[in-house]
């Protein structure tokens, strides 16, 4: 056990985590040197191409150090997106050390800090590394000063490397061996293994990535999931080298996998503890949490015929993503689809992209919303994550919405624009911190609903891309909230309903109407669009009837070309959604996402 080192790499997106990981794999001979741009830890595309899963989020490397001894180094990957804070915390819990990678040109950013604080909370030994020293814009001395003051370590102890060129990367391995402590844990105690990640394999079922904290896990042993009590007969126990490689057993301190044969990753959730069925542990490892969706949206097939394909795509995505939640939903405007819950906006974007790219489905996502707690006059509380389902105003005592704490790290010059952005969105300023010279961390409390629609884009544009953001759930708070409805020729469009703050109802309604007037094409009759809130119409516009839609000429007998145009027009019409007898293009359902700030 003394020769085992379990560590992860924490870094802001683009600071070079994957490139560094690749270098380490090459240096240790775990993966033969080849095209260094092919990053092993981000291997989604690769997986698909090969049709097998080689998701290498826990690779074992054997390394012979300068002291002549051979070490077992387990590199554990952490998800890069802020929505996956909980998953990150479980990955950290499987380690004793963390390499903190900071870009020599960018310096410390919000996500780096958030992960670093988590790593420190998890009692990990930090090995700070400044990357990208080969770039001409690198300012390693400055960044070293910042890190030194942050961690309270001498600046000289901070390694300076270029993962791209390979410069000084060997020193990183030596530092891991020298500074990261070996794991502790009683190999004779009853088995307790932490699940820190998982994937679904069509042959082996759910493959749980585990860190054995105590005890020993042999391939033949029956095991039990401690959160559900489910008994499992493992198909295989092994390590990632980096491909899955069966071993006879995993002992305390070791990292590897258990192929469980389970059919869904929900049955082997991240954070759960696996124990032995024959000699179960008394208590699970601390910190298990059931992931809770925070952001909700309707997902509908662009063409009704694709409903079954969409269901299958979501089911397949869920096999590998325990935090994706969905259930069937029917919208009068959009037809049959699903209500889906996500950990956050980034998570939603990832799912949207995967549905479109990997499953080649054309889908309509409705505007994202949060889950509101609605206290009714009769004393009951209801959770509303579909705005159209909000009960009548008369029945409502109080509406509560989720609030978040957010930390924004930015060069000090953008202090003002960020304050303006956050306070405009009901953010409450909790004060600044100065993690490094010329950098300020602005802390706010802000309703989640205010940051799920283009907050991040807006933040990036106001700070020329320099600001970074991290957020966590805080609590539910009551506020003056009301339903904003859009009516088309008098009929409310369920998929366009929103829950908004009273003070924003008028403006949002107006902007929605302006946008919809642009997006709804002229029809054979006049179309009235209205925004209504609090029982009255707050904005209206008319789309004039279509007067001219005909090809003037059918030239030289070229009927084929004319037909192609008509066929295209017909396809476009078919993709429209009907509300009453009004055709509404799918873009319109995303309109609320595209309301520009005046």
């Amino acid at each position, binding site marked *: 056990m003394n020769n085992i080192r379990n560590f992860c790499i924490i870094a802001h997106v683009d600071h070079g985590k994957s490139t560094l990981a690749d270098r380490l794999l090459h240096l240790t001979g775990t993966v033969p040197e080849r095209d260094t741009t092919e990053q092993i830890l981000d291997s989604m595309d690769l997986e698909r191409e090969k049709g097998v899963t080689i998701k290498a989020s826990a690779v074992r490397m054997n390394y012979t150090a300068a002291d002549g001894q051979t070490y077992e180094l387990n590199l554990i990957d952490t998800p890069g997106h802020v929505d996956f804070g909980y998953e990150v915390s479980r990955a950290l819990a499987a380690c004793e050390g963390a390499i903190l990678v900071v870009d020599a040109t960018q310096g410390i950013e919000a996500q780096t800090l958030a992960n670093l604080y988590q790593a420190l909370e998890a009692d990990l030994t930090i090995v700070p590394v400044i990357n990208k020293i080969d770039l001409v814009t690198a300012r390693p001395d400055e960044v070293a000063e910042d890190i030194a003051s942050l961690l309270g370590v001498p600046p000289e102890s901070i390694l300076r490397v270029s993962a791209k060129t390979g410069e000084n990367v060997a020193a990183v391995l030596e530092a891991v061996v020298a500074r990261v402590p070996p794991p502790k844990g009683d190999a004779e105690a009853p088995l307790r293994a932490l699940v820190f990640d998982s994937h679904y394999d069509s042959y082996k079922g759910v493959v749980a990535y585990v860190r054995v904290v105590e005890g020993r896990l042999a391939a033949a042993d029956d095991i039990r999931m401690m959160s559900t009590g489910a008994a499992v007969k493992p198909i295989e126990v092994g390590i990632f080298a980096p491909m899955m490689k069966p071993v006879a057993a995993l002992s305390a301190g070791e990292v590897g996998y258990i192929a469980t044969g389970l059919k869904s990753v929900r049955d082997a959730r991240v954070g759960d503890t696996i124990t032995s069925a024959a000699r179960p542990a008394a208590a699970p490892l601390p910190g298990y949490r059931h992931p809770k969706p925070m952001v909700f949206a309707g997902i509908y097939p662009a063409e009704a015929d694709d409903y079954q394909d969409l269901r299958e795509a979501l089911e397949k995505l869920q096999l590998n993503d325990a935090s994706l939640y969905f259930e069937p939903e029917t919208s009068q405007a959009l037809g049959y689809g699903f209500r889906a819950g996500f950990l956050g906006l980034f998570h939603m974007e990832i799912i949207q992209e995967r549905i479109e790219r990997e499953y080649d489905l054309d889908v309509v996502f409705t505007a994202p919303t949060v889950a509101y707690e609605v206290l009714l006059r009769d004393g009951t509380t209801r959770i509303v994550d579909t705005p159209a389902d909000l009960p009548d105003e008369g029945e409502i005592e109080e509406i509560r919405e989720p609030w978040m704490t957010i930390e924004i790290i930015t060069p000090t010059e953008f202090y003002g624009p960020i304050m303006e952005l956050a306070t405009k969105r009901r953010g409450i300023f909790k004060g600044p911190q100065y993690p490094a010279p010329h950098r300020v961390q602005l802390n706010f409390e802000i309703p989640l609903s205010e940051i799920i629609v283009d907050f991040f884009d807006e933040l990036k544009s106001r700070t020329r891309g320099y600001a970074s953001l991290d957020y966590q759930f805080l609590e539910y708070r009551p506020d003056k909230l009301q339903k904003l409805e859009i009516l088309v020729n008098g009929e409310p469009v369920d998929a366009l309903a929103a829950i908004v703050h009273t003070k924003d109802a008028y403006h949002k309604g107006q902007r929605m109407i302006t946008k919809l007037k642009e997006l709804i094409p002229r029809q054979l009759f006049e179309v009235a669009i209205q925004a209504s809130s609090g029982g009255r119409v707050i904005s209206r516009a008319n789309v004039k009837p279509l*007067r*001219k839609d005909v*090809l*003037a000429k059918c030239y030289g*007998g070229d009927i084929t070309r004319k037909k192609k145009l*008509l*066929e295209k027009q*017909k396809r476009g019409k078919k993709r429209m959604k009907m509300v009453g007898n009004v055709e509404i293009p799918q873009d319109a359902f995303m309109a609320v996402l595209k309301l520009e700030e005046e």
Partner: protein
Amino acid sequence: MNYSLYLHIPFCVRRCAYCDFNTYAGQEALIPDYVEALRREIEAVARAAPGRLTVHTIFFGGGTPSLLSPRHFERILTALQSHFSILPEAEISLEANPGTVTLASLRDLRALGFNRISYGVQSFHPEELRQLERIHNPLDVFDAVRWARRAGFENLNLDLIYGLPEQSLDRWTATLRWALSFAPEHLSLYALTIESGAPFGRWTARGLLPLPDPDLAAEMYTQAGERLGVNGYEQYEISNWARPGFQCRHNLQYWRNRPYLGFGAGAHGYAGKMRVANALRIRSYIERCKSPASLPFPLSPASVHKRVISRRVEMQETMMTGLRLTREGVSAREFARRFGVQVTDVFGAEIEKLLGLGLLEWAQEKDDRILRLTPSARLLGNQVFLHFVD
């Protein structure tokens, strides 16, 4: 079954700013070879035809057919006469640009058998002609019409374009009045279509030119229709008006979905349950026509596309083209005679829906029933036609 022949003459002195037809400027040196290629193609197609075909209309379109000399036309017409049975009363049309004709050339053309001229006038406003990048001025039209009459042409058409960017209703009315003052037998009024492949398309995309206002264009169309009616013209197609007896028989062939052969670069043909199209570029057309290959009718060595038309598609296309005919429409009796099935049995649901939307109407014509666009639907044709495509 009478056939129609279309001959494409793709040469132009200059390309107009709104035009995305298959035309080329500055390639006039190829005209002699092109005329030769046309002769070869005519011969190749006619030889493969099931017997000697009877022809009742011939149309030279472009491009600018009037760039060819009367001698060129003579060669082409001789080829046509030796391979087809051209009816004595056949309509033989020439598209011409004012400014490319002379009294002498028109006399020669008339002597060769041409009996209809269609002038691309477009506008009588000098500024609009400049905007369209036409090569003629309003005075050229005056000469072109006068000379045509003097040469003995008794069937003249003027093409006009409305709905230009920034065109006012008044300017359009002025153009229309000028056109009427020449007392043409036929008038085609085309709404400007912004084609992405033409300079107008690029200019509007880049914001250099405003897009025409569709409501104003609709108003222009409605007012023009009224004015032409008062002046004794009958509308017979969405964009076409004629004095009684002067409907363009060649274009009627397309709209009645009857067979025609297309010769020349990029020309389209429809015969033998097949739609075919030729190579677009002049040089490749000329090269292809040198091939001695004998292909099944109506293909020619220049054909690059062919599509076999199923009975179902033929029925759809008959609706799509026939409903462009605003008076004649689609005759229930003719449809049943042609396809052996009632139009209401094939397209019952579509027709019901369109009747309900007020876009189509039934008209009683002696013992026949005719399905046609309602007057207000004439500018909404696409909303009707798209029910007859898949």
